């Protein structure tokens, strides 16, 4: 530090001088009159002049109890007024506990004190409310047993524990996310298994065929079915080709694989007989079950996701609402108490230090940035513009590449695919070109994005977000492009073609074809993921640790980057969602894949990785995962939705082969119901119902919005009251020391120093526009009035 005062300091000093008068205002004003009774002092306290006391009543009893408890429990109060003894307090607490508002275990007291409280309570309970308490207890007990039971069911508890201990909660949340997805896929699989696969295996007696009202389709259907031969045994005659053919087929989902329950095309368009009594036959409508189950797996996924993300979202909304509290979060919630590993602890120290330093640095940079000159700004913006154009170009080029690859694969297959002389490996390679292109792009392009963002000179945090956003776009765009390409290939069909080909290409069952594409992507994703882990990450660690001195600076140990890994599994979940409709058993593969990946990732993490130097917070990440998942979920709904309501189902295969759209099965079923039910359904579908329903929803939305605004105002008011409370304390202390004639000089001095500093702080920030120059009582009281009237006004409006 140089001797000459920095400009900032000078300013600060001046401000201090200026503000001193202002802050002294409320304190010195009452002291002008020399003789004041205690009563007057109390009356002139800042809060008494506002409606503070009223609000105290409003806050209710429990709040008062709590403040009393915390005041006594956690600190020896400055002004010791605890003469009334501990008993009152204990009684109050006991009462509160007995009423079931809190539990004995919530007391911040040592075990002995709690036990004492428990004894007291038992005495109390004998006196009064008998059955209610015992019912409560039984309920609690059963709840505890349930909790015990579920704790036993928790999968991967110990691996999670060791991950948490070594790498902290940020990375743990990634693995928790993975576990959650595993269960989601398991649920989807069970649904598909129970309602689609099992019935089609068990109920073997056919009752009727599902057909469209227009009977003309039936002949084409029969014709097409005979044309569609997914598995031709005659091609498998030469025995020496047998094994390799099987492997190739398994990887492509063709041949014998296509002829299984894995794919859409294998399911029948029949109504199966379950059981018949004398006058009634129980039947199972397979097409209807297929459609409803598919819809319900989307619905269940959505509900589970929303449920999971709601809490996290609330938290992160609260925290994003005021960026205000980042430092407190970093300091008071900075240390991860779960860490039990020395190296991890060192890293955590480093991480916290790094984070705090960068934050402080960033603050300074921001202050500097505000002073950026016009020329610099101009240059920076043009650089950013160019980079963004470049990014768009890359995305576009990627899209085109995927389009080109999938068109090429299809054309090549229709040209040479049926030719028995073509090498089967070449065939495999060609059919995999779209998947290979997508996977390749996903590997290379993010690295380019990573480099590009460096030129743009964003703040570090925003930089991460920006790269992530672009990568998400890439991932989703590549899947979207593939689906788009597929759409152009399938959607042109008129089914006039006697060969039953969709458009001009060699597809007779487009749903299975889409399913195969998804299946290939899933397999590809799995193979690449495994290969990268085994053949890149492990050797890297081996080499780096072997030539430690030479290579450590150049290559370095691998960092476990959460965002990238999350994108990977979200991507594979996207594939699973889309694919499940066209290949009902795909979730089983996804479950296995997730299961293997969990152990693979954990192994790689434990052996190869060091914690990332860029910290990633647990609370933030959970929301982030869910938001990305939701976005990709929406992307999944669109193609499947179009497939269900718009595109003609293939004539040759699948449960909907004779219908004009898949959704027709629902209308057909409703038409078969009694008239009254049908009418209700049609009414629900009509504008007469939908318009009022939407209106009501809008009104509800508005109501809750108004409510949340009111709550926000309430928070602001309470904040002001807290400030007032502090002012009260200040004011009272001031009076006390004045009256004592500063018998406690150190205290007084300290207070004086604090008052000075307070002035400085006040000069720097006037939070909520709350200004010290205005007399403090005015602001809160007006704010309070505002607020009390607000809910009423909302009610009046209703």
């Amino acid at each position, binding site marked *: 530090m140089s001797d000459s005062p920095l400009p900032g300091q000078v300013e600060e000093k001046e401000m201090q001088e200026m503000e001193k008068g202002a802050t002294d205002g409320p304190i010195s004003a009452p002291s002008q009159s020399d003789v004041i009774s205690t009563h007057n002092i109390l009356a002139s306290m800042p809060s008494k002049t506002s409606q503070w006391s009223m609000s105290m009543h409003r806050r209710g009893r429990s709040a008062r109890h709590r403040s009393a408890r915390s005041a006594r429990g956690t*600190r020896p109060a400055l002004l010791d007024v605890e003469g009334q003894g501990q008993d009152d307090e204990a009684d109050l607490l006991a009462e509160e506990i007995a009423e079931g508002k809190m539990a004995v275990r*919530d007391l911040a007291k040592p075990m002995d004190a709690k036990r004492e409280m428990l004894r007291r309570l038992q005495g109390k309970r004998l006196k009064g409310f008998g059955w209610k308490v015992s019912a409560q207890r039984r309920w609690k007990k059963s709840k505890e047993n349930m909790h015990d039971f579920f704790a036993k069911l928790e999968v991967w508890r110990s691996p999670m524990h060791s991950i948490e201990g070594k790498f902290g909660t940020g990375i743990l949340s990634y693995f928790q996310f993975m576990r959650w997805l595993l269960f989601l896929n398991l649920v989807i699989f069970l649904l598909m298994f129970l309602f689609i696969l099992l019935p089609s295996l068990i109920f073997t007696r056919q009752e009727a065929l599902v057909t469209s009202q227009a009977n003309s389709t039936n002949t084409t259907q029969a014709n097409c079915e005979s044309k569609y031969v997914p598995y031709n045994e005659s091609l498998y005659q030469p025995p020496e080709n047998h094994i390799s053919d099987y492997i190739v087929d398994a990887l492509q989902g063709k041949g014998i694989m296509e002829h299984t329950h894995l794919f859409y095309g294998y399911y029948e368009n029949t109504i199966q007989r379950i059981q018949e009594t004398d006058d009634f036959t129980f039947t199972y409508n397979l097409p209807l079950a297929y459609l409803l189950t598919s819809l319900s797996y989307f619905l269940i996924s959505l509900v589970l996701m929303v449920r999971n993300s709601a809490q996290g979202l609330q938290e992160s909304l609260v925290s994003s609402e005021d960026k205000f509290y980042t430092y407190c979060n970093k300091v*008071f*919630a900075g240390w991860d*108490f779960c860490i039990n590993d020395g190296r991890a602890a060192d890293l955590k120290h480093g991480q916290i230090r790094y984070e705090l330093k960068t934050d402080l640095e960033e603050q300074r940079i921001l202050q500097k940035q505000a002073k950026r000159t016009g020329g610099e700004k101009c240059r920076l913006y043009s650089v950013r513009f160019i980079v963004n154009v470049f990014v768009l170009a890359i995305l576009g080029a990627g899209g085109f590449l995927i389009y080109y690859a999938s068109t090429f694969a299809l054309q090549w297959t229709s040209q040479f695919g049926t030719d028995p002389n073509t090498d089967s490996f070449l065939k495999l390679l060609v059919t995999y070109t779209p998947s290979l292109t997508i996977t390749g792009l996903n590997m290379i392009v993010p690295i380019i994005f990573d480099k590009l963002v460096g030129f743009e000179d964003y703040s570090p945090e925003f930089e991460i977000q920006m790269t992530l956003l672009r990568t998400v776009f890439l991932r989703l765009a590549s899947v979207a492009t593939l689906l788009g390409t597929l759409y152009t290939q399938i959607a042109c069909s008129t089914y006039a073609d006697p060969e039953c080909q969709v458009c001009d290409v060699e597809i007779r069952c487009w749903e299975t074809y889409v399913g195969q594409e998804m299946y290939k992507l899933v397999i590809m994703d799995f193979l690449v993921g495994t290969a990268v882990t085994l053949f890149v990450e492990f050797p890297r660690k081996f080499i780096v640790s072997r030539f430690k001195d030479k290579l450590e600076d150049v290559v370095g140990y691998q960092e476990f980057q959460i965002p990238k890994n999350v994108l990977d599994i979200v991507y594979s979940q996207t594939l699973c969602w889309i694919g499940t409709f066209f290949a009902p058993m795909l979730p089983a593969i996804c479950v296995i894949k997730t299961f293997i990946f969990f152990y693979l990732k954990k192994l790689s993490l434990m052996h190869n990785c060091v914690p990332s130097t860029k910290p990633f917070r647990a609370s933030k990440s959970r929301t982030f995962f869910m938001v990305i998942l939701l976005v990709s979920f929406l992307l999944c709904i669109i193609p499947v939705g179009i497939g269900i309501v718009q595109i003609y189902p293939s004539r040759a295969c699948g449960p909907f082969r004779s219908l004009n759209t898949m959704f027709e099965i629902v209308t057909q079923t409703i038409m078969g119901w009694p008239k009254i039910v049908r009418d209700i359904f049609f009414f629900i579908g009509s504008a007469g119902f939908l318009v009022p329903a939407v209106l009501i929803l809008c009104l509800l939305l508005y109501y809750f919005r108004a409510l949340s605004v009111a709550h926000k105002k309430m928070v602001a008011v309470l904040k002001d009251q807290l400030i007032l409370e502090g002012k009260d304390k200040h004011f009272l202390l001031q009076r006390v020391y004045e009256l004592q004639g500063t018998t406690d000089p150190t205290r007084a001095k300290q207070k004086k120093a604090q008052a000075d500093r*307070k002035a400085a702080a006040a000069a720097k920030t006037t939070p909520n526009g709350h200004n010290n120059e205005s007399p403090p009582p005015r602001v809160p009281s007006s704010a309070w009035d505002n607020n009390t009237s607000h809910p009423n006004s909302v009610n009046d409006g209703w």
Partner: protein
Amino acid sequence: MGGSSSQFTQEELKEYQELTYFTKKEILHVFKRFYLLDPPSVRANKNARLPKEKIWSLPELKVNPFKDRICDVFSSSGDGDLSFEDFLDMMSVFSDAAPKNVKVEYAFKVYDFDSDGYLDKSDLKQVVDRLTGEQKLSDTEMEQLVDNLFEEADLDEDDQLSFAEFEHVISKAPDFINSFRIRL
């Protein structure tokens, strides 16, 4: 530890269950961990008061920068030594099931180095110093940081955080509930 379940009567276990956030099994697990800290003395007397040095050998505490404060706060004798009940208390507060407000109260005590009921500048400095480990922040950085902290949290501008202010600020710190816990 073969007969750990025989260490406690059913009544004792039931009472502990009511006084902590643990199930019976978890309580026995906590006892096992306590036992492993110093097998001879616990075997002799299960209510033995273990010196804090022994307690610090718990892996989570060993690397924890606030281990002495944690022991002080939970010690019913006030000198940092913990009996089993204190230990159980501690693990209960740090468990997943403990509600946020309980955790906040204890966190406040832990961070309140001079136990005067307020977090003042020196408390905050100590907290930050312990968080950053051996390499400390420079003086100017520390000043800037403490200023920022007060700016965020010190609503009544008296240069110290009262419990109410601390509670308020923690309610806005989403990571707290994740970080202030020790897995059993």
